[in-house]
């Protein structure tokens, strides 16, 4: 398992549109992917979970990836979230 702390640079946070796009990206990977904000840990393949984590612009979150394609997955998600 690998993980990385990142700061969200999507101006409108990870809400409906970016949240949905994030799910599309996460779905491309076999690995399990989670986002951690505070005590909240949500599945990056579940759009409603991402939404209810209320992740906003400039929030610090951790991406946690576990699986055969974890490196590639982490890189892709990090790029999307911090772009």
């Amino acid at each position, binding site marked *: 398992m690998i993980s990385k702390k990142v700061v969200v640079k999507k*101006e*409108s*946070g990870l*809400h*409906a*549109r970016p*949240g*949905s*796009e994030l*799910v*599309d990206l996460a*779905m491309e990977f076999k690995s399990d992917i989670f986002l951690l904000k505070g005590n909240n840990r949500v*599945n990056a*393949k*579940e*759009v*409603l979970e991402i*939404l*209810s984590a*209320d992740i*906003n*612009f*400039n929030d610090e979150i951790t991406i946690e990836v576990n699986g055969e394609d974890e490196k590639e997955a982490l890189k892709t998600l990090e790029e999307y979230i911090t772009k």
Partner: protein
Amino acid sequence: MKLLGIKVGNGLGLGKALIIDTKLPELTKGTADSKKEIKKVFKAIDESIIDYEDIIKVLKDDDLKSLTEFNKNVLISPSIKTELEKIINEQQCYGDVAIDIYFANKIKQLENLDNNYLKERAKDVKDIRHKVLAKYYGIKEFNPNLLKEDVILVSNEMTANVLLTDNLEHIKGVVSLLGGKTSHIGILTTSLGIPSVFGIEVKNISNDDLIFIDGNKGFVKTNLKEDEIKKIKEKIKIEIELNKELDNVKEAKTLDGYKFEVSANAGDLTELEKINSIPLDGVGLFRTEFLYLNKTTPPTEDYLFEVYKSFVTKLDNKLMIIRTLDIGGDKKCPYIDIKEEANPFLGYRAIRYCLDHKDFFKTSLKAILRASAFGNIAIMYPMISSKEEISKANEILEEAKQELIKEKIKFKKDIKVGIMVEIPATAVIADMLIEEVDFFSIGTNDLVQYTTAVDRGNTQITSLYNWFNPGVIRLIKNTIDATKEYDDKFVGMCGEMAADPLGIILLVGLGLDEFSVNMNMVKRTKKYISLLNKEETTKFVESLLTLTTAKEIEDKLNKYAKENYGKFY
């Protein structure tokens, strides 16, 4: 019959009322055959996904596309089927009950969040539940692709599903009881250019009746007479022509060459994406409330700074006026200690609260100051009713500046500071206050309300709420005149009057410098200004100042508008 509602999507439309019954059968009671129900539920989900995918394929509009993709993603969730299966197996219930339980949980999670935006998303999830249940029951949903004549959709709670199509040509309007500007159906109608009015009860409208919707003013008319229909058709034709012309609008320059600033009001992150697609001269009113309302703890200086910075860097050095927090007892915020009051609009709010909570206020000012290093930013204080308040606010601003200097953080030292003129006492002594500030911004929505003592939400007295009331006009004139002795000061207006075709005539004549209007009214306002001759209009408006009733003033303005706006009025 004229039915008043809340205007949401701009535009006019005429069509047969099509009442969409969004009611589903009652949930099935009793013990079910789990295997059979699981199959049925899975089928309902798969069919819903296919529907959404089909729609995505044909959609061209980005907003619609992303909403539909969100809906689809909710249903392709890796856990949805296992969870539904579990519910059915454990409770031995029918599939519709399981679907209801599953989505009810998700909806509750979103509704419990302290974020208005996410609360609205709960409604989207309700739409998805509705679709899956309809599939489960085998109910055919309303299909806009089959429409053959112009209709206005009417429902108590319109679901966004009905607009997920690329065949919108026959949908001339949307009328709903529930929903607001930020609901998805609200956002969709606005971005698709479909007139919409909310807050209207379906029982007042009969199916198939030809009705007229005015999304610019916010009403629906039923039982139309022949001559009315003729007039409406004419009006719609003009509206279409005007909209075509608007594509070419760039600046607001009168026929005799005077230029006016037309900027936009903003107060929502979704507007950030629109800024560059509209020919605005700046942001005349940046509402900061949304940054505070969606939180359990006060926003940090860094957070506010980043948001302001992201906006102002998109504005290419155009002026962005940030209004400090305007919050009161009508809006609850867990960390802001304002009690519920009988009259929140006459209560402890805005600058009155901020001056008592110096550190809180200073944090917000420091964020604005820091962002001023990245663009052309001005500060505006709301609800100012006296000179002392301006001095006190400026003292705190000075402290904020000193702290930033100590922290060696850059900001614009001579940042412009102005006030909202929305309290009659302030407008009356505008000449005494102008020395204290760099600009005024007349907030007509409140100024009219306070001057005429009319709550605009009270339907029995709405006719008294009128910005052409001679008393209101005098206050506006007084405020504008006070700035005219100073070359380096200006006066703007944020409020609906600034986008009203008749209001524009009056304001051009009185010499307003800046019109700040809703994003979707910027082009229209520029167009109207450019159809006027400033010097003639000034003379005409002078002649209005002796009239003693709002009615006479409006009649004269109406006539002038017809002469000058021509086919666009």
